[in-house]
């Protein structure tokens, strides 16, 4: 074969057959081989401002995505500003044309308008409407957004998607970055990956499921879309309107709950979690159950379990309005949802889901890592471990429920033990080559036999004692040695007498040092919207609802909103208008005028919650939501009537969503809790920083989410709500140090 001229190679004159024949030739022709290496595919040269693309003059860069870069540009012919998306790779021009063709068929206020599309040289571009606004991710981060605001934005974006679906277009890459929020208008853009319904089958008639097996090696490179928002079926290339629905629900969940529904870094990990129905729901979120349920349905791994259409999903999350017509249609949706719920119930066995949770960590990718680092035997060993964990966890979940405190405690401790085992495995899997974790059953890996029969008198760890006692340090002491090396465990003594909760869920959020007064939240279903004070009178407690007195103040009652001063003379309630708390003095059960001195903006985060006050009323610990994570913050004031200062981060905290539940009366031990455990952080003096002893308080590894120390911390009040937030029998338990 003759080597073609430079100009011929650069032109579009060669047919595909000629070009491919030349490529075959270039593999063995040194002159042509270098040219084949340089021929465009992959990233082209970057576009520079003031350069021209077609007739458009490029301005500043607006954003950069996987497929292309968006610039502000000027259309000199019509003298109007536009946005122009320039593809990194002109060979993607087919996709681009698809986008333009798809969008040309749409004229919808919630879908971006397309003016022009073309290819010039190596650049393929789409000229679009320039929307003066920010993308949804920026919009969400710019300021705290209320639930109705967020829902409204998603409803508009959802209508855009619904319109696209009606035109036979699947977006395929819906995510917050592709939604533009302008004043009064929300627009879905970046249909770059969209395909018309009929084009999914490849030219050779095979579906992408049939591609040869070695493609698995590069499958992530070929799947187009953004993993965090991709529906499981998209991994095999099977995108449908239901896949957009899934992506929409991931984005909405992220916006409403502040965290994505699935953890994991790879597509495969997330896919496995989605398939297992394991949705992460952050502690303390206050999203209406109705919306949560609709999103969960949209997040179903099986597309047929999602809503029929986007419109149905939108109806399910839209605000309920007055009027019997709308109420009636809502009722139809509700009935449909209920019917679906009942239908799908038998398939989605929650206990099986609990059990398969381990495989969200022990993924194929993790297996490959272990196999490479430590060999096949170790990999097989962990597979056996994971299977044993699954069986044990499922069996424990299926055991008949009980109200006997001892059994509840035992079961909770076992559940916590398994969860801890899973978390430790997950930690280890992140870096299996670390030697101290190398041996299963050693290091921090928990032998499952230990969880079979958790000894309730388990010793609280053997970490070094900061005071040189030679014994395990008692976190509940007065800062001195315990005097003997006996176990420092707790025993649950039973439900607190006299607290007959009006709701279906409750959470203790404060207690006086002597335990004579408690503060707790209660609510119907999963919302905690009533604040109660309970006083011990004789041998039982009497509750009083404080909520009505809070009406009209700048406060909000929800999970994690409140705490009680250690002497019981004041409550702290979350401030509604800014991240912080407002202090109300308590005279008996009567709230006094709010103490505005406390109402300082405490954090730059979006929310301050889970407050804990020290006994002297001068230190305030709280969680703050910042950068998509929760951090433990501390704020100090010089005197009990001075305002609290801006909070600072507290060191010594490892787990996400670990929060302070109480501080010992001597101020030296801070109790931290997560969903799995309670552990103390200790300090030498009130001035010193907290350090982590690596201790865990065994009995407080309860499913309840707060354990508040009372009686010099020798007793705990802890929340145990068997069976999740819809349980009929919420209980506050008391636990006593043995």
């Amino acid at each position, binding site marked *: 074969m003759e080597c073609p001229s430079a100009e011929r190679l*650069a032109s579009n004159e060669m047919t595909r057959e000629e070009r491919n024949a030349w490529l075959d030739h*270039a*593999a063995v022709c040194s002159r042509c081989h270098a040219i084949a290496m*340089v021929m465009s595919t992959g990233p082209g040269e970057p576009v520079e401002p003031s350069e021209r693309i077609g007739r458009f003059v490029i301005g500043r860069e607006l954003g950069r995505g996987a497929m292309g870069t968006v610039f502000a540009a000027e259309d000199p012919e019509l003298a109007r500003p536009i946005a122009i998306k320039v593809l990194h790779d002109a*060979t993607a021009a087919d996709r681009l044309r698809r986008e333009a063709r798809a969008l040309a068929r749409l004229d919808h206020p919630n879908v971006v308008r397309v003016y022009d599309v073309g290819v010039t040289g190596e650049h393929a571009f789409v000229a679009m409407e320039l929307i003066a606004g920010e993308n949804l991710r920026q919009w969400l981060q710019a300021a705290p957004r209320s639930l109705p605001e967020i829902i409204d934005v998603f409803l508009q974006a959802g209508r855009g998607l619904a319109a696209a679906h009606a035109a036979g277009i699947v977006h395929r890459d819906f995510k917050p970055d592709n939604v533009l929020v302008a004043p009064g208008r929300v627009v879905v853009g970046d249909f770059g990956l969209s395909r018309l319904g009929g084009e999914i089958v490849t*030219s050779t008639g095979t579906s992408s499921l049939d*591609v*040869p097996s070695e493609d698995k090696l590069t499958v992530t490179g070929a799947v187009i879309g953004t993993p965090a928002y991709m529906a499981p079926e998209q991994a095999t290339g099977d995108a449908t309107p239901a896949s957009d629905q899934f992506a929409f629900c991931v984005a909405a969940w992220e916006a409403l709950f502040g965290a994505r529904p699935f953890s994991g870094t790879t597509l495969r990990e997330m896919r496995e979690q989605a398939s297992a129905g394991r949705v992460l729901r952050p502690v303390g979120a206050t999203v209406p159950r109705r919306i949560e349920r609709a999103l969960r349905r949209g997040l179903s791994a099986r597309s047929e379990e999602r809503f029929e259409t986007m419109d149905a999903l939108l109806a399910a999350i839209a605000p309920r309005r007055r009027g019997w017509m709308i109420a009636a249609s809502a009722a139809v949706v509700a009935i449909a949802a209920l019917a679906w719920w009942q239908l799908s119930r038998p398939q989605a066995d929650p206990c099986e889901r609990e059990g398969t949770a381990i495989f969200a960590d022990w993924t194929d990718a993790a297996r490959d890592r272990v196999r490479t680092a430590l060999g096949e035997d170790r990999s097989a060993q962990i597979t056996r471990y994971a299977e044993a964990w699954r069986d044990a966890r499922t069996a424990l979940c299926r055991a008949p429920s009980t109200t006997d405190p001892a059994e509840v405690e035992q079961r909770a401790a076992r559940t916590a033990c398994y969860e801890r085992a899973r978390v430790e495995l997950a930690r280890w899997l992140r870096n299996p080559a670390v030697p101290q974790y190398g041996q299963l059953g050693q290091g921090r890996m928990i032998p499952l036999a230990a969880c079979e029969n958790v000894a309730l008198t388990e010793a609280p760890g053997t970490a070094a004692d900061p005071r040189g006692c030679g014994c395990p340090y008692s976190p509940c002491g007065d800062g001195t040695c315990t005097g003997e090396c006996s176990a420092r465990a707790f025993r649950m003594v039973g439900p607190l007498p006299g607290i007959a909760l009006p709701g279906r869920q409750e959470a203790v959020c404060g207690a006086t040092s002597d335990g004579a007064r408690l503060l707790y939240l209660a609510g119907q279903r999963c919302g905690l919207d009533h604040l109660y004070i309970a006083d011990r009178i004789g041998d039982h407690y009497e509750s009083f609802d404080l909520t009505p007195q809070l009406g009209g103040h700048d406060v909000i009652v929800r999970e994690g909103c409140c705490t009680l001063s250690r002497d019981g003379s004041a409550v702290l309630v979350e401030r509604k208008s800014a991240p912080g708390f407002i202090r109300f003095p308590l005279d008996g059960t009567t709230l006094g005028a709010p103490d505005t001195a406390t109402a300082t903006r405490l954090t730059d985060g979006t929310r301050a919650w889970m407050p804990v006050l020290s006994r002297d009323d001068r230190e305030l610990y709280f969680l703050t939501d910042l950068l998509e994570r929760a951090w433990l913050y501390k704020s100090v004031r010089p005197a009990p009537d001075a305002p609290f200062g801006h909070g600072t981060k507290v060191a010594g905290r490892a787990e996400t969503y670990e929060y302070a539940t109480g501080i010992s009366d001597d101020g030296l031990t801070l109790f931290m809790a997560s969903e799995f455990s309670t552990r103390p952080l200790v300090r030498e003096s009130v001035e010193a920083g907290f350090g982590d002893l690596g201790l865990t308080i065994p009995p407080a590894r309860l499913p309840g989410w707060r354990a508040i120390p009372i009686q010099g911390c020798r007793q705990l009040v802890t929340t145990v709500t068997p069976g999740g937030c819809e349980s009929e029998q919420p209980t506050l338990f008391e636990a006593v140090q043995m």
Partner: protein
Amino acid sequence: MDAVVALYERARMTWPEIARVTPARFATELARRLGASLDAAVAGLHDDIYLVIGASDGDPAAAETCDKLASRAVDFAASRLGATATQSDDVRSEMRRLLFTSDGGRPAALATFTGRGDLRGYLRVMAARELARRMRLDRRETELDSSVLELFDPALDPEVAMLRDRYRDAVEAAFTAALAELSPRARAVLRYHLVDGWTVDQLGARYATHRSTASRWLVAAREELRTGIRSRLAAQLIISESQVDAIVALVTSRIEVSLDRLLA
């Protein structure tokens, strides 16, 4: 073609005060007036011809733009081919010489550019060619087979050592012969994939085909190679079928390993 340009240029010189008639407008209108023959000649011409004419005519802005594009093409090609800064600089000045000046019987490259292709692509091809010359990549031709072989060198694996020692020549001969007998497409995709490290997606993009097709080509090429090696070894060596299978499996397992490595 030249006539149109010449006419346009002549016309502009005659009436320099007329600024509205762009070459495109001029050509379109000519085509409308004269019929489809000119239209066919002019259609598909790249706008770059205007720039190139400007540069050939010594328009400073046009020359500067062309020089900048050429320089970028060199950078681009150099990054793909792994050229050094010195090699790039040499090629940059060589490109300048080729593009702008004529000597002996060779006209300046810009003077012969017809506008049928995109200037950037043209410059890249030129840059690649000059870089290859400068980097002496010309010699790569004969290296193809051996470089592929190197990748599969059975010596890399101690397990294969015994078989290699005993059947070394036969295995290598079978391998080379099987490789030589591959169809041009199979050879090309194996080379691009194994030696040049193109992914299945890049193969698909460059061959303008779906990635699954490219992927099937690769599978077929490997299978072709495997069968080729197998039939040769079976014919040459007096060993049992299972031993042939073992050798083929060992050799081809190297291919799998290499694939894994390249695709990782």
